[in-house]
């Protein structure tokens, strides 16, 4: 039997675990002033890289058990990383399932006026939003923000 103290630390497992944790943490970057455009890709590549490192580490732990540690915790971490990869991939695909909106108003086109209830229950038209409020000049533009709701 080999003395476990003579075994080497399995560094690829640690790197893989670190990258996987970073991958999970990267999802929270959306809440900070981080450029959002590359984020969905970072969320996908980081867990993939973490998984590759973990798999190399686990293969090393099993093929050279006399040299490397990490058979048990390396396997557990790999399963967790695989789940993170699968979850990220699923979420990545789901988050990008957008309607094409080819019929939406384009730049230079006029938008149709409409009337809807505001949050106090009053009817409001788009035209009304361009009206001057007391003591202020009329707005030069209105920003229409369509959002998903259910906040």
């Amino acid at each position, binding site marked *: 039997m080999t003395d476990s103290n003579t075994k080497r630390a399995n560094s690829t497992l640690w790197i893989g675990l670190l990258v996987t944790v970073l991958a999970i943490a990267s999802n929270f970057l*959306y809440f900070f*002033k981080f450029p*959002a*455009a590359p*984020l*969905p890709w970072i969320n996908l590549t980081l867990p993939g890289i973490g998984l590759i490192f973990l798999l190399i580490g686990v293969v090393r732990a099993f093929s050279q058990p006399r040299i490397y540690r990490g058979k048990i915790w390396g396997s557990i971490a790999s399963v967790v990383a695989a789940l993170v990869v699968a979850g990220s991939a699923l979420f990545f695909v789901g*988050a*990008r*399932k*957008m*309607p094409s*909106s*080819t*019929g*939406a*108003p*384009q*730049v*230079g*086109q*006029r*938008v*149709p*006026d*409409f009337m*809807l*209830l*505001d*949050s*106090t*229950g009053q009817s*409001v038209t*788009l035209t009304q*939003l*361009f009206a001057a409020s007391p003591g202020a000049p*009329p707005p*030069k*533009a*209105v*920003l*229409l*923000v*369509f*959002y*998903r*709701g*259910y*906040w």
Partner: protein
Amino acid sequence: MAISVDAPEDSEHLRSKQGYTFTFLSDSKREVIRRYDLLHKAGGPDESDIARPAEFLIDQSGTVRWENFTEDIRVRPRAQQMLAAARTIR
């Protein structure tokens, strides 16, 4: 101005909680959302139809001067982007 499928009272709750001073409009019938071709079928909870995120800057003549459609529900334009677009309108 913000539009969603939320009922006026839900929008009012969000508005007052966040301290927003702009107008929130409720399109629970998905009327305007449909007319602007922004309906995301089954995109909401329990397969409900909701609006996809989209932003339009409209000038006084009712013409679109800037717009943005996200390809990913996790990605939205930054406030600076929208302010920069608004500054181009004199």
